[in-house]
């Protein structure tokens, strides 16, 4: 064969030279060029050890000699053509190739067609045909067939002649020779890529049969070329690690492809494919799907983010076609690695290394509070992670962060990290990838169990930290209730009494030292004295505009718990609810205490100053039964005693209302809500009920339990919650608490938006009106008591003087008496007619009517 070939090379070289060199140079000249060329070709074939550059330079030397000859004859065009061909010969590596090439040339020459003929309409296009399943399926679409040298007068031709043109073709060998380049994305004289790299021009000399095959085979080349272009374009420019991983996967596939192509077209003898059909089969089986899949993803790569890419590939792993399924699975395995790294960092360290914003958890660094910073984006949970599992994953990292950053539970976290990194490394959960990086197979049961186990460990410990002796969450909530909701009423009562003088001042004028003094005295005179949390109490005055409020309005109790980790959960935003509630309850308590003090005052007055007047009244009453005629003075005494009595009764009614309000808010609102929203939600209905439940199950159906146990054994760890508290995530706890607090501060009586049906006024507005009336009453009553004392004193003086018969100052006393009587009349009128009859009665009646028409508050209406 080699001998034949070298002869053939000789022959064809001669023919080539003859065809290129114009005849006027003469046979001799042609001969000399031919022999020179042959020498150089022989050198190429024999000296595989020599460097290509030296060959090139020799060739150049050679061609330069002939160049002068061409140029001197004015044959520039021919020279260029000649030189191009010589150069193209240079690129071949073996004589075989040169031989094939030359034969091809010859054929071209004999057909009289130029191989650089203008492009015809036949071209193969990856875009239109990329995913066709069979290369020969639908030839009507193949323009190549329809337009290729259709015989003109078929009727007149013999069948032989008719069919012959179809058999005329570029030889398969030639095609094969060029094909490998094209398949590797290199332009060749036979097949060249369009500038857009989306089309390849097929020569018209290829017949339908080959072009059909080529059409399909070349798709690989086109895709390859595009993919390579894409890689070059994007390499180092992609942010998403998932996309980068995809590019990497693609690169390794393409490398394989190149290897395979080289193998298919092995030039060293053991060529795997000897025909176009072989090539087609080889590619079709191994590559076309891969390339198409890789390409189909690349097409949209810019439009999607890493997560979408991941999801897309994950979806493809469920594709019906086994090949696609396998291929996507192996792609997924690779591109999931960056995602896994994010996931793992999150699950083990609570770190977010998602630089490209693709994870379903985000940090909002503009926020200040722990709970606002970590954000959960359920929409971003990839499809291969179940939503519930996603929630658990979110909570896991959140708990790790909370325990590490806010609770300083470093030792426990360290143990946790050791345990789970080891578990991930050692157990069957791991699928060690090529680069030995750990890959969690996210959709497996093992993974789910791992998450469940981590979650369980963390939630148990977080529960322990929050509810146990480190934070005493429930105890602190109870203490909030005791302080802000005034469950420790005796303490607040003391504060009101001890601060009575100071709180009447403007807040500007109240010294902080006074506050601490009141605090100290109130603590030591109340049940607070023996309570564990008394040290946490503090007083402050709310900041208001220029301190223009009096102490009563701005006084605030402060329960300090910033030494506890729960402080980060119950931030100042949340605590405002407590402050609001305290402010209102404090007002109620203040009035309540004032009314009680008023009672004591009146009782004392009655026993002391009014003792005589009462005695006179008794006698008058008993005597009036007998004769019924009263002097003016006697009438005045009855009037005074009656007024005193009535004012006491009014006070008692006002006090009752305040008591009913406090009672309702304390027990029906606060305690009920605490019981329903905190106790019942936080504590298990039965202590350690879970085990009891299991025991119950066990007694019901032992077989079922056996199955259950078997399933349980497959779980990674068996770590159930064994406390009396329900498993609650941080979010869960916060939402329970928020709900509890909201129900209290927005209960119907206090919510400004709840309007009474009768009055069209909000309940709270009406309550404030009642409180205002109460306050007016108290102020007037104080005045009344003072006047009463004066009056009684004057009466006594008058009496003494009349007894002692001293008349000198009697007029003066009478005058004083008259003044005091007038004032008394005024104040009694104010209290009785204005405050009681006009204001109080109307307001309370309307309020009760409103309550009565409100289904939820009907019961309350009956207590007023």
């Amino acid at each position, binding site marked *: 064969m080699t001998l034949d070939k070298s002869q053939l090379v000789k022959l064809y070289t001669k023919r080539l030279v003859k065809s290129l060199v114009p005849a006027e140079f003469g046979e001799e000249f042609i001969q000399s060029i031919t022999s020179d060329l042959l020498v150089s070709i022989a050198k190429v074939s024999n000296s595989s050890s020599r460097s290509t550059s030296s060959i090139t330079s020799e060739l150049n030397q050679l061609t330069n000699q002939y160049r002068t000859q061409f140029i001197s004859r004015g044959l520039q065009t021919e020279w260029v053509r000649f030189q191009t061909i010589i150069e193209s010969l240079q690129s071949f590596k073996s004589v075989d190739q040169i031989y094939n090439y030359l034969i091809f040339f010859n054929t071209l020459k004999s057909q009289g067609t130029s191989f650089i003929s203008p492009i015809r309409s036949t071209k193969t296009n990856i875009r239109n045909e990329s995913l066709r399943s069979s290369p020969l399926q639908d030839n009507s679409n193949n323009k190549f067939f329809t337009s290729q040298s259709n015989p003109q007068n078929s009727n007149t031709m013999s069948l032989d002649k008719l069919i012959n043109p179809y058999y005329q073709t570029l030889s398969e060998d030639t095609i094969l020779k060029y094909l490998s380049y094209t398949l590797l994305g290199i332009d060749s004289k036979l097949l060249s890529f369009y500038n857009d790299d989306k089309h390849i021009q097929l020569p018209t000399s290829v017949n339908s049969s080959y072009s059909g095959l080529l059409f399909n085979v070349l798709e690989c080349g086109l895709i390859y070329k595009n993919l390579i272009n894409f890689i070059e374009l994007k390499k180092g420019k992609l942010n998403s690690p998932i996309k980068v991983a995809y590019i990497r996967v693609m690169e390794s596939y393409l490398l394989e492809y190149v290897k395979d192509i080289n193998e298919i077209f092995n030039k060293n003898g053991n060529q795997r494919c000897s025909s176009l059909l072989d090539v087609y089969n080889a590619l079709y089986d191994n590559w076309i799907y891969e390339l198409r899949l890789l390409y189909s993803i690349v097409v949209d790569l810019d439009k999607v983010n890493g997560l979408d890419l991941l999801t897309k590939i994950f979806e493809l792993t469920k594709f019906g076609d086994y090949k696609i399924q396998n291929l996507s699975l192996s792609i997924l395995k690779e591109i999931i690695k960056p995602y896994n790294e994010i996931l793992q960092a999150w699950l083990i360290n609570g770190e977010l290394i998602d630089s490209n914003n693709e994870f379903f958890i985000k940090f909002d660094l503009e926020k200040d509070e722990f709970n606002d910073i970590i954000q959960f984006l359920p929409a971003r949970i990839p499809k291969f992670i179940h939503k519930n599992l996603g929630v658990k994953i979110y909570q896991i990292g959140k708990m790790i962060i909370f325990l590490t950053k806010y609770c300083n539970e470093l030792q426990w976290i360290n143990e946790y990290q050791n345990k789970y990194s080891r578990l991930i490394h050692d157990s069957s959960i791991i699928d060690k990838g090529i680069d030995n990086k750990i890959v969690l197979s996210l959709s497996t049961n093992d993974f789910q169990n791992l998450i469940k186990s981590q979650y369980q460990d963390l939630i148990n410990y977080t529960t*322990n930290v929050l*509810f*146990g*002796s480190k934070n*005493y*969450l429930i*105890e602190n909530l*109870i203490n909030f209730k005791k302080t802000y909701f005034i*469950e*420790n*009423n*005796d303490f607040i*009562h*003391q504060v009101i009494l001890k601060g009575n003088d100071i709180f009447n001042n403007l807040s500007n004028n109240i010294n902080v030292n006074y506050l601490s003094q009141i605090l100290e005295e109130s603590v*030591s*005179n*109340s*049940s607070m004295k*023996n*309570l*564990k949390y008394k040290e946490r109490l503090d007083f402050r005055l709310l900041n208001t505009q220029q301190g223009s409020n009096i102490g009563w309005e701005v006084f605030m109790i402060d329960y300090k718990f910033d030494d506890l980790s729960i402080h980060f959960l119950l931030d100042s935003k949340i605590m405002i609810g407590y402050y609001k509630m305290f402010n209102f309850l404090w007002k109620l308590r203040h009035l309540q205490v004032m009314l*009680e003090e008023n*009672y*004591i005052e*009146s*009782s*004392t007055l*009655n*026993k*002391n100053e009014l003792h005589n007047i009462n005695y006179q009244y008794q006698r008058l009453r*008993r005597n009036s039964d007998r004769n019924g005629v009263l002097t003016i003075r006697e*009438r005045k005494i009855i*009037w005074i005693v*009656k007024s*005193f009595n*009535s004012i*006491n*009764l*009014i006070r*008692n*009614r006002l*006090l009752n209302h305040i008591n*009913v309000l*406090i*009672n309702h808010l*304390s*027990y029906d609102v606060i*305690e*009920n809500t605490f*019981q329903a929203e905190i106790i019942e939600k936080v504590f298990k209905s039965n202590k350690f009920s879970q085990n009891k439940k299991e025991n119950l199950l066990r007694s019901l159906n032992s077989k079922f339990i056996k199955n259950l146990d078997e399933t349980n054994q497959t779980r990674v760890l068996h770590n159930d919650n064994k*406390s*009396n*508290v329900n498993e609650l995530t941080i979010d869960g706890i916060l939402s329970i608490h928020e709900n509890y607090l909201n129900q209290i501060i927005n209960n119907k009586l206090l919510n400004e938006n709840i309007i009474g049906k009768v009055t069209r006024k909000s309940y709270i507005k009406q309550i404030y009106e009642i409180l205002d009336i109460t306050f007016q009453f108290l102020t007037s009553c104080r005045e009344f008591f003072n006047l009463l004392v004066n009056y009684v004193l004057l009466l006594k003086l008058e009496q003494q003087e009349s007894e002692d018969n001293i008349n000198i100052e009697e007029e003066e006393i009478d005058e004083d008496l008259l003044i005091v009587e007038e004032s*008394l*009349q005024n104040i*009694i*009128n104010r209290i009785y*007619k204005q405050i009681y009859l006009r204001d109080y009665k109307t307001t309370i009646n309307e309020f009760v009517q409103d309550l009565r028409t409100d289904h939820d508050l009907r019961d309350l209406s*009956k*207590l007023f």
Partner: protein
Amino acid sequence: MPGETITLQAGQCGNQVGLQYWHQLAQEHGIQPDGTPLAYPIDNSLTYQQEGEELPSTTTKFRDDRPELFYTISDTNKYTPRSILIDLEPSVINKCANQLPMFNPRNIHLSEQGSGAANNWKNGYSYGVEYQEDLLNLIDREMDKCDNLSNFQLIHSVAGGTGSGVGSLLLELLHDRFGNKKLINTFSIFPSNEKTSDVVVQPYNTVLTLKRLIDFSDSSFIFHNDSLNSIENLLLNNYNNSRKTDEVFESTNKLISYVLASVSNPLRFPGYMYSSIESIFSTLIPTPNLKFLTTSIAPFNNSLNEYDMLLELLNDKYKMNRVEQTKYISVLNYIIGQNLDQQEIRKGIIKSQNRIDFVPWTSNSIQLVHGKKSPFIKTNSKLSGIQISNNTSIVPVFNKILRQYDLLAKREAYLNSYVESNDRVERARVLDSFNECRETIASVVDEYKSCQLDSYLDDDILQEDEIM
């Protein structure tokens, strides 16, 4: 100002009841008879606990209750009742000192003769006058131990000699010395109304004492022996009449002391409301002229829930004085227990309100104390309940006393034991002062009668523009 209470227990009855009362308080605060405290039980029901974890069940550092309102606590952590024990004969006081060595022996005042007051008010009163310096010293000393004295409470009987006589003097002394801003409250046990008493001068004693209650106390709880006996039978299902008189008295005293102790439950175990005696009285006593309070006790029955208990409290047979066709001025119910069911309470309160006949001018509302059960009391009964009310049942009670008094006074019977000498002037003087007391009581009856009318608050006289 809310703070400590000093108890004065005078006479046999006062000290008998006082003994039981301090037993009850000691039990509720975990104080042993010698005054040493037990560790305070911790309520772990709302504490995080892991399975198998043992939480401490008691503490000596912290406590929720306020025994210091009723006890002085020494540096050696010994609890001593803030109580002064007064009697003219030693038997009961000795019993007290023996059973409860926690009593401060220096707070015991015993007559040197030890002969008693012979069921005569005058004897007791005169004795008191004679020893008033001693008595005041005792009171002053106890007062000095208080940071914030709020209230004196006197436990006594109104019918005998010491409780009524010394008790009356004590009220006068307290009023004179502390009457300004310190509340004076009495738990007064009234004699049998129905049966003829073995003490013939009971009506005199009672009238004389009542006058002091009216003048000097801020509130008086009335207990009626007859009613107490029948309640006791009802509550304890004790129909066995063969018991000794002593035993009967003891269980009656236990009942009274149980109620006495319960009254101060919200002070000693403070919560949202009624953590001061002032808050209780100001709710119950609308005006100082209506200050006689009646109590009733709910049966100790574990099957009763809050609702049942509130209704039981309305039942006249559990009232501690006889009541017929009563109108109510105010009602304060106590439900004492743990984790009270607010819904049942509300239901019970509304139902009770419908059943109770209130005087017209009041707000028809029953107030409620959500009492806390002492953590030291480990009995099965989940709930207990008492009721304090201000009602017109005082009218028949006082009228009956007045009738009995009138019967004696008309004949000037047994007057000689109340006079200095038997001459006419002295008898007339004494009878005059007796009648003055009678009139004062009658005026209270009048007050309680007139308060049943609308005009009690909305009197025409207040509507007039020109009264002066």
